[in-house]
């Protein structure tokens, strides 16, 4: 059914006559008809809308006619409806009387410098939040020692299982592959100088000191860190954290400490297992790609494994684990809003945790280099 809005003019007065279906399914045509009719009203001081010939009207059609009348009145014209159509008259009146006059929308600036400034201006607040959380965690440790019942120790075994043991396959696989990569890289570069016998030492030094803890921490941050952050964020938005507080629990002691402890215990173990698998990866790559025997490779490896190489890597692991735990739990506890906020906080937590593990690892390397270790 066609839609039209006819204009009948008599001097300074005009009558608009809508015909057809003014409804949602014809809203685009109605909009066009209203726009055309409005353009033809130049010079009119008063406008009537005659609803007699309307075949059908619903809320959408009524809104479009109501807004037309509003605009005409805003232009200083007299505007009214007439005709024997009580349903249409009632609908138009309803949408006119319930209209909210909104203030002009604020234009958001898109100036890059302003946006950079806005981000920088938020940094002190964010840093304050982070230090506040670290401080609360630090205070929680002696308090937990004094009142052990304020910590959820019962959850510790299941957390270690969830965070550590369940992550073992994926961290092991990642370390094995990295061991193979280091082995192949060593063969490619050292082989040019006939120095393939140094490949086992390269694998040990590179993996034990740097890549083992780092790869393990990155995988744990992506897997367990995301899980921790989303769990804590969900607890926050569903008011479980508030419920804990209302019952006199400190969420940091009850929830954060066991999770950080579980990470601090399991990540070094995962790193150690990962180191062994990286050696296997290096061995497989070297034996397959060169004429070195497994026995020769093992001998080279055993010579390279020193206390310094082993401990410089393993010392890092608990610190990387703590960083992951604190960031994941801290971001989770900062969540505000609904389900969308959980996803956003989890993403932030994983990104921050991975970045932090890299930075902390680099700082340790710098420290050991300065100490000559």
């Amino acid at each position, binding site marked *: 059914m066609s839609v039209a809005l006819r204009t009948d003019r008599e001097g300074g007065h005009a009558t608009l006559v809508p015909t057809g279906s003014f*409804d*949602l*399914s014809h*809203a*685009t045509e109605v*909009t066009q008809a209203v726009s055309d009719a409005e353009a033809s009203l130049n010079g009119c001081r008063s406008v009537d809308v005659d609803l007699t010939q309307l075949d059908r009207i*619903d*809320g*959408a059609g009524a*809104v*479009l006619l*109501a*807004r037309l009348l509003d605009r005409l009145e805003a232009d200083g014209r007299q505007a009214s409806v007439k005709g024997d159509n009580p*349903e249409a008259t*009632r*609908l138009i009146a*309803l*949408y006119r009387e*319930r*209209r*909210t006059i*909104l203030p002009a929308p604020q234009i958001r600036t898109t100036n890059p410098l302003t946006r950079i400034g806005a981000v920088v201006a938020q940094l002190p607040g964010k840093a304050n939040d982070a230090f506040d959380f670290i401080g609360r965690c630090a205070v929680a440790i002696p308090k937990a020692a004094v009142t052990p019942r304020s910590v959820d120790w019962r959850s510790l075994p299941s957390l270690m299982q969830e965070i550590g043991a369940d992550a073992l396959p994926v961290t092991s696989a990642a370390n094995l592959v990295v061991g193979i990569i280091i082995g192949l890289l060593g063969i490619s570069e050292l082989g040019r100088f006939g120095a393939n016998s140094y490949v086992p030492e390269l694998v040990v030094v590179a993996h034990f000191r740097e890549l083992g803890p780092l790869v393990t921490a990155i995988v744990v941050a992506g897997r367990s860190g995301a899980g921790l952050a989303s769990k804590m964020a969900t607890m926050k938005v569903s008011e479980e954290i508030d419920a804990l507080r209302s019952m006199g629990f400190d969420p940091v002691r009850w929830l954060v400490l066991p999770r950080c402890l579980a990470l601090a215990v399991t990540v070094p173990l995962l790193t150690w297992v990962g180191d062994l698998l990286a050696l296997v990866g290096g061995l497989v790559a070297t034996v397959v790609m060169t004429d070195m025997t497994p026995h020769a490779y093992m001998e080279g490896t055993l010579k390279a494994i020193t206390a310094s190489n082993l401990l410089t890597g393993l010392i890092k692991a608990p610190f990387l684990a703590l960083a992951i735990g604190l960031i994941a739990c801290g971001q989770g506890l900062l969540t*505000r*809003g*609904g*389900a*969308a*906020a959980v996803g956003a906080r989890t993403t932030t937590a994983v990104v921050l945790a991975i970045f932090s593990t890299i930075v902390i690892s680099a700082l340790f390397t710098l420290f050991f280099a300065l100490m000559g270790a």
Partner: protein
Amino acid sequence: MPSRPHITVDDLRIGYGTRVLMEHTTFQVERGTIFAILGGSGCGKSSLLRHLIGLERQQAGRIDIDGVGEPSQYEGVPPFGVLFQSGALFSSLTLAENLWLPLNRWTPMRGATAHELVQAKLDLVGLGAFAEYLPGEISGGMKKRAGVARALVLEADLLFFDEPSAGLDPISAVELDQLIITLSRDLGITVVIVTHELPSIFLVADNCIVLDKAAKGIVAQGDPRKLRDESEIPFVHAFFTRSSYDVTANPGG
């Protein structure tokens, strides 16, 4: 001549697996009226609603919505709107975007016209100034009203409300009831409400059915005020007068 009922439910049986929640359920909802589905917790009110809006398929019997047929078989522009108990607004979208979503899916409207329609619906429920707010930034009562606006945006002439007053303070609950009355009286919309809030029932409902868990179906139907004053069925009397009722003594309701 009386108009055809908006909803016809005939000898309906619903349940999950071998568990039957309701059987031999027959009722009609007249066009333009406010119809309440009442009953205590666990009697199957919300399950019946889920069947009426086509989210579940009945085990037996017939549900017919005028112009739609069997709701679970229907495809196309939704012919009815639903206000879920929590409001069910998408938390990552602003109120305006929540309303724009079905409009964008089912109509060719874009730009200023779509904006005008969305704003008008928000104005209608008194949330015109909150179009750019996220659901997390508004109160529970406002979320419900925004849910109503979203249910209205496709100009459906039938609305379903699941526990609209649940979790609201008395003033917000009355405001929502007034909105429901406005929708029915001024827009001619048929409204089906699932509730157990007595003040709301007596204020808004033209007609109702009372469900009982033990009877697995309807134990009374009619004007809720008349049922309150005249019904001699113990469960119905107890329900409307909030008096105690011994289920074990009256297993059939």
